[in-house]
């Protein structure tokens, strides 16, 4: 059986076309595979970078806490002790009969100043390391903190906690972060909000901690804060702390004031 040149040509061209189409299909398949691989690699790279950033942040926060602790200890043990010695010496002078009334007045003034300094050192060292938080937990520490600032300001603080008892304890990292965040938000409200009332609700459900912090002040624009490099450090600090403990913050601007909604997932209560 002899084929004509036309038959050979058509057959040959058909085979070539088949190979071309196969090659094109292969290119599409392989390129898609490569693209998916690239995406996967990028995602893995991003996850590693994120984890690294988180660890870095965690370390930086830990160093910060260690430094605070050292500072508080130094203040309490060194400066506090010196002030106590000074107070004792001054007390000796107070007990002595003095003829000169002006010197007597000076000694009494010194006594007042020393007492004030001792109180201040105690207060600063207590602020630096929240002993109540470490010893009695989040609820006590928040209540104590609110009572303290309520005394020194005209703002009314309202604190509600649901599904968290006063004895509830969480991981130290979580407790400290939540407490520092509340401190930061309260300080911001005191400085900028012109609010007369601050509400804090703390809830714990299904291993998720919910925190709502709301004030009735003037409110603020997050965009403006972020645009200004000199401001917004507090918010960034809160975000950094939250990223370490798997938390997220939502900033809402209701009709009046500001509302912060924080959610911390994978949060376990310690027995």
């Amino acid at each position, binding site marked *: 059986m002899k084929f004509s*040149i*036309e038959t050979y*040509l*058509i057959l*040959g*061209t058909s085979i*070539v*076309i088949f*190979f*071309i189409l196969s*090659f*094109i299909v292969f*290119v*599409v398949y*392989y*390129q*898609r595979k*490569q*693209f998916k*691989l*690239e995406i996967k690699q990028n995602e893995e790279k991003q996850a590693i970078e994120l984890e690294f950033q988180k660890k870095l942040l965690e370390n930086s926060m830990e160093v910060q806490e260690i430094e605070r602790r050292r500072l508080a200890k130094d203040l309490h043990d060194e400066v506090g002790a010196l002030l106590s010695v000074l107070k004792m010496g001054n007390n000796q002078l107070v007990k002595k009969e003095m003829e000169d009334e002006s010197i007597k007045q000076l000694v009494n003034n010194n006594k007042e100043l020393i007492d004030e300094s001792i109180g201040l050192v105690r207060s600063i060292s207590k602020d630096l390391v929240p002993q109540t938080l470490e010893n009695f937990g989040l609820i006590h520490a928040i209540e104590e903190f609110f009572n303290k600032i309520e005394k020194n300001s005209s703002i009314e603080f309202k604190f509600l906690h649901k599904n968290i008892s006063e004895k509830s304890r969480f991981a130290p990292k979580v407790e400290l972060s939540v407490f520092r965040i509340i401190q930061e938000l309260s300080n911001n409200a005191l400085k900028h909000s012109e609010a007369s009332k601050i509400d804090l609700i703390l809830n714990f459900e299904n291993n998720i901690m919910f925190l709502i912090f709301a004030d009735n002040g003037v409110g603020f624009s997050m965009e403006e804060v972020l645009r200004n490099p000199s401001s917004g450090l507090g918010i960034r600090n809160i975000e950094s702390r939250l990223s370490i403990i798997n938390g997220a913050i939502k900033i809402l601007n209701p009709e009046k004031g500001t509302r912060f909604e924080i959610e911390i997932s994978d949060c376990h209560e310690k027995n």
Partner: protein
Amino acid sequence: MQLSQILDEIIRISTKYPEYAVGSLIPILPLVVGIFTKKYATKSSKLIFWFIVFFILTDIPTWITTAMDINNLLYNDTKIYSINIFLLTVYFLGIKRGSDRIVLFSFLSIMGIGLVLQLFGIIEKGKYNWINVLLLGSVAVWYFVRLIDYPKIRDLLVYPFFWFNSGILFYCFSTLLIFFFFQYSITSDIKNQTFFLFRSILEYLTSVMFVLFAIGFWNLKKNAQIKTK
């Protein structure tokens, strides 16, 4: 010969050999799609668009000379040479890498020299067209190999140059055997019928290239939308 007579003759040829009519009319499809998607045109799509314009314009003299029964074999072979040179120029202008451009330039030089030699009758008409499509086809294959190594394109099927390159690749390798056998159709005693069969298949395969070009133009908008996302 009057214009009406030429037109009548063109219609008669078109009716007798519809594949030639299809081969000449099909480039209008990517041309129209290209006009509609002009807003999203890229550098390469613009070059392909001008190639289509070139193809349509150079096809008109073929029809007229055929209708007037003027021997246009040299013109046709020169046109095929020009098509290959034009398509290779698209790659040459679109590719920035120096070493690649040297290779493309050498290919262009080979084609250019071939065209000049053919025009001066030093080599036989259409005898070495297969070398041109082989060179152009290898560039299209090389482009796909490069594309595989560049996995930044989200969806290849929406990427216009994928379709343009597929069209060129299809045209080159599917017509390779035909162009290769052309030399025998000229020199040996192969029947006239075989020669017409060769040309008919060539017309259909060229039409496929233009359909793929049309798909490429159609995807210009989608590709632009993906890029802006």
